[in-house]
């Protein structure tokens, strides 16, 4: 791992020793990472699609023909209309409507918002939790370390979806079965956050174990810098590469997990649907031939996850050439 950040030693026979001693970010821009980014058209396309999804999510209210979360704007007489280009299509419902008269296109835009919000917050939560626990475990070692890593080991054997479902079920039983949509969103973020912290913690802990024995940490300790400062300012930056890779891949996983929970009926409610909720609703109408209610949210979700995954894959390969 460290060879991605430590500058090449002078006189090494590596052909690309020219990019020595520049800071990490400058290296990122100047070197192989950027090269491989430009070289891979697929990655560039994935980046563009991801960006597009984020923009769509941000500007959803400007693009949508209705606010699908507002029951007052939905009319039952508009229910189950086929997409615009089919014989039964009706303007302005580009991708048709569902059984409540909700415009599928608008619902997707808003659903994307929910999915990405839960995903990003989940990643942020799990990342923060994992990094902090990893730093603590790695820096202090001993009993604290073994306790944290034992929990991590045990949790790692269980799939995240199971843990998220359990957390979900427990929260429901404590707070009652009917939570409002925003609280449900918070529950999802917590459930996802608690399911995905292990990988960050392990990676950060590993780097800390390596870094803390190096001379510069000893030097920092000698001049009396407190442990948190050493950790945050000196050790943490060295772990950012791998953490970034994990975060990208986990964003895709978090989006999948949210969608799955919502699909299973343990996520976002019908009144404030995410993409997963929309797919669950649409699935009920598949046999009636109303395929558009499930197809378009499904395609959107798949495209979103695929492009994030492509970015993550590329980032992993680019930051760690040895794995290629």
């Amino acid at each position, binding site marked *: 791992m460290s060879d991605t950040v430590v500058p090449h030693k002078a006189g090494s026979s590596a052909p690309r020793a020219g990019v020595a001693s520049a800071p990490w970010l400058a290296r990122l821009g100047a070197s192989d990472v950027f090269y491989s980014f430009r070289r891979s058209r697929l990655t560039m396309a994935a980046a563009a699609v991801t960006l597009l999804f984020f923009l769509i999510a941000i500007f959803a209210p400007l693009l949508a023909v209705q606010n699908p979360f507002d029951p007052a704007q939905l009319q039952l007489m508009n229910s189950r209309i086929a997409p615009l280009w089919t014989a039964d299509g009706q303007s302005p419902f580009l991708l048709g409507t569902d059984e409540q008269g909700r415009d599928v296109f608008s619902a997707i835009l808003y659903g994307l918002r929910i999915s990405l919000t839960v995903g990003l917050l989940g990643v942020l939560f799990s990342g923060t939790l994992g990094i902090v626990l990893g730093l603590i475990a790695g820096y202090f070692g001993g009993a604290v370390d073994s306790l944290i890593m034992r929990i991590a080991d045990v949790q790692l054997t*269980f799939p995240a979806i*199971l843990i998220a479902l359990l957390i979900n*079920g427990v929260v429901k039983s*404590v707070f009652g079965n009917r939570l409002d949509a925003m609280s449900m969103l918070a529950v999802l973020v917590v459930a996802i956050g608690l399911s995905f912290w292990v990988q960050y913690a392990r990676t950060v802990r590993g780097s800390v174990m390596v870094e803390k024995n190096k001379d510069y940490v000893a030097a920092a300790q000698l001049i009396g810098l407190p442990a948190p400062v050493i950790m945050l300012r000196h050790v943490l930056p060295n772990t950012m590469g791998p953490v970034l890779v994990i975060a990208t891949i986990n964003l895709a996983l978090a989006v999948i997990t949210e969608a799955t929970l919502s*699909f*299973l009926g343990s996520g976002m409610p019908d009144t404030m649907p995410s993409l997963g909720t929309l797919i669950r609703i649409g699935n009920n109408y*598949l046999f009636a031939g109303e395929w558009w209610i499930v197809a378009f949210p499904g395609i959107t979700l*798949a495209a979103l*996850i695929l492009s994030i995954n492509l970015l993550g894959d590329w980032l992993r390969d680019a930051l760690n050439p040895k794995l290629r």
Partner: protein
Amino acid sequence: MLAFTLHRAIQAIGVMIAVGIIAFSMFRFAGDPVNQIVSLDTPPAERAEVRKSLGLDDPVIVQFARYVGNAAQFKFGVSYQFRQPVTALLMERMPATLELATCATVLAMVFGILMGVYSALRRDTLLAKAFQAISLIGISLPTFLIGILLIYLFSVTLGWLPSFGRGDVVRIGWWTTGLLTVSGLKALIMPSVTLGLFQMTLIMRLVRAEMLEVLRTDYIRFARARGLTTRAIHFGHALKNTLVPVITVAGLQFGSVIAFAIITETVFQWPGMGLLFVQAVQNVDIPIMAAYLLMVSLIFVTINFVVDILYTVVDPRLRSTISGAA
């Protein structure tokens, strides 16, 4: 070897105790069990009676001991929704889940290893690239979407395969199997593919990465320098060394497959433990949730244990370090 086995066994028991505490905490503290049993207008005296009869007034440690004692005899209490013993509910559904998970794992192993080996050995061919693309899609498409897609194709459009249920099952003792009837086998196809696809992707990627790694090692280079045939090098030396970590991962994944079956079973309304669990989560049926957690953990821990032991049988290096340490 014995010391190692013992050590692992103690670890496994430790994990089970930890999970037991979690399950017990859920059972005891997540919502009041009394409320689930009595109706809203039950007088307080009667509530206290129920509370006492459930042993909820005893010290927590006593309750925990009782819970563990019961769990060890596979007594997990009564389901809130079904008013039936949880154990009976789970056992009734276990064969469905195990058959599904086994089929999915076999599919995943066979195709995952074949595709992984091929794409490692013929890295730049079109087919290898196609496999890579499939693997990316397999990881990116959520399981439930794959299930829906298959249902739309093979049930709604083509009408070839049933979209839900197990078909006809044959009862053998307490076990029910769908493997002996045509409708049972037909019903098994789509759920197995759906459930296995993600694992297959995982195994394929792992096999490919491991194999490429192994092909770079010195002993492969030396094997080439010895003039061994490509076939002997690839399928004798490289494959054997590749499969050691793959066995571990695939084995460990079996637990995950059972847990992931939750999603597949929901999509296909497959009458297994996963579907029961999802319904339990929706209806806050804590005894079922707790029991499911314990059951799945037990399966996980057992598999972990077996794989650890198996690993040492396959890899002679571990065998001697272990006996050396013992």
